[in-house]
């Protein structure tokens, strides 16, 4: 019992009042830290298996190598990190691997531009003119998601082999047959576009479908032709969606090594992912692989953060 003179509420009282207020606001009362209990297992799991591994990668990158077995010895104390090996690996990026990095950027820029032009056209058509067939279109557009990526590459590999159907058609039309799978940049770009374009179309469709028809009608009422309405209303409106979709398709392309390995497997088309994959699979190159992973992460950090911000905004708008 507290004395009646003191007007200051005690701590316990304040807490009780707070809870009562919360109850009055939401109508119900939950035990203390109720929702935290739901989130904790998942949170611990993510910390343990998603955040800590990144620290391990850093420790391997700045760690040492066992002198006998050539296996990496990660160093977990930042004050003992050595940056010599890492500097050497980064030096390689500007030396022997420079061309690969430039090639990767070129491939990714070309492939994602093709994805954008083709994907936007398809998404726009289905969103605006899909009509009664919209469901059919959607099923057809989504189906590539349920077909394994590797199967889709396998399909192209069979089409493009020396005696495959593409070359059979070329020979039939009296063109010389082409060694598509012998390190042609075109083939790799085709593979990347084919592999990742579904990830472009669906978000764009989702956005274009939500554009308020009244805006388009307003444009038409104000005397714009359909073409002008598209260039002055629809396209500027969809700019954020385009940026997000470009990020979605280009991020996995940067880390892609299997498309290249399945459709070309030649040093002429090697990409960043291939260097990384080779380093992981070669014994004694553990720290180098870790450095390459970190470099890739740093390169992709800005687009990733952009994507996170745009999804957060999108959620806030709903």
């Amino acid at each position, binding site marked *: 019992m507290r004395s009646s003179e003191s007007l200051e509420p005690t701590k316990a009282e304040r807490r009780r009042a707070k809870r009562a207020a919360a109850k009055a606001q939401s109508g119900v009362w939950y035990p203390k830290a109720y929702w935290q209990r739901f989130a904790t297992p998942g949170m611990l799991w993510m910390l343990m*298996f998603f955040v800590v591994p990144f620290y391990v990668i850093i420790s391997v990158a700045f760690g040492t190598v066992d002198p006998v077995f050539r296996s990496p010895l990660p160093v977990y104390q930042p004050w003992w990190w050595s940056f010599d090996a890492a500097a050497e690996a980064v030096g390689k990026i500007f030396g022997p691997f420079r061309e690969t990095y430039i090639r990767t950027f070129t491939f990714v820029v070309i492939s994602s531009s093709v994805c954008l032009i083709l994907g936007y056209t398809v998404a726009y058509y289905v969103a605006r003119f899909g009509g009664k067939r919209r469901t059919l279109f959607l099923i057809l557009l989504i189906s590539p998601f*349920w077909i*394994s990526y590797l*199967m889709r590459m396998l399909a192209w590999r069979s089409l493009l082999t020396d005696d495959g159907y593409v070359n059979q058609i070329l020979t039939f039309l009296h063109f010389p047959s082409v060694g598509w799978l012998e390190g042609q940049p075109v083939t790799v770009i085709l593979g990347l576009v084919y592999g990742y374009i579904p990830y472009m179309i669906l978000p764009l469709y989702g956005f274009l479908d939500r554009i308020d028809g009244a805006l388009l009608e307003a444009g038409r009422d104000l005397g714009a032709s359909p073409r002008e309405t598209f260039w002055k209303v629809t396209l500027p409106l969809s700019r954020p969606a385009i940026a997000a979709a470009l990020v979605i398709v280009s991020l996995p392309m940067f880390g892609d090594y299997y498309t290249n390995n399945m459709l070309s*497997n030649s040093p002429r088309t090697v990409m960043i992912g291939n260097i990384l994959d080779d380093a992981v699979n070669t014994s004694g190159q553990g720290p180098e692989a870790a450095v390459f992973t970190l470099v890739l992460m740093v390169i992709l950090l800005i687009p990733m953060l952009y994507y996170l911000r745009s999804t957060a905004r999108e959620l806030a708008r709903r």
Partner: protein
Amino acid sequence: MTAPTTTRTPGRVPVGGGTPTQPRSRQSWRRDPWRRPRILETVTWAYLAWSLLPVILAIFMSFSSGRSNSTFQGPLTLQYWVGTGFEGDNQSLFRDPDLRSAIRQTFVLSFATMALAVPFGVAFAIGLDRWRGRPASGANILMLMSFVVPEIILGVTALYFVLYLFKFIPLGTPAQLMALVTFQMSYPVIIVRARLLSIGKEYEEAAMDLGAPPKQSITRALLPLLMPAILASLALVFADTVDHFVTVAYLSGASESQTLSMKIYTQTRGAPSPAVNAAATFMLMSTSLVIALGYVAYRRYSRGQADTGMTSFTSQV
């Protein structure tokens, strides 16, 4: 308002003018704002053909009688599915011991991932949705991050984690499962959170007003409402795990932990036989089956609620 009507009758005259020209010249077709977008339509159908025909051809090839998987040889057979008596490594999908073990491993991983990632994810989503603190938003960013980081980065970090820090997790099924659960958890979280946003708190609060303790208000009011989202994420996690390749390949140990997708990868790079196509087709069939089951269950559970149907299911997916 004299807004132009939005009917798309061909030949209808645009605002402001003239009489419809009956024998339509090319000029008038180009000027007609309500004309059918033939170019867009052609591009769309061409895209769909380009995106699906190669796969259909690859499926077809698994029923070929020849040894090549690039040129079809009739008649249609099942010999690369169930056939016996091949010489060399030209085995059929269900007889080759390696492929059989790959099928087993694929399903073991998919079901185990589904069983772990979905409950974790659903609880995580409920917690994140209601607990609006700094840790919660941090966890949310982590979740989205695991969604956008390229798979190779996730694969390498998980591999080094298991190799150098958590050495007690052996390569093979345990390591693969650890990584898969980590990276698949974001699907249920994203899907369930979207659903939580749309159902709001009212049902639960009503249940509690009627005397249900907090626990029951979750199990009796919230979970049934979340069922469509849970089913959608179950189907999605299963289908995605079956197709998973990069992390699973990095974390595989002995040959027993090789999955179908790894087999397809290695054999495609070598000399693929139609058995590889059979394996890929089999994967496609199982994911389609699960997605279809998920859709049927989704329809059943979301009956009587707003937004049912293919479009909302696919938008969840």
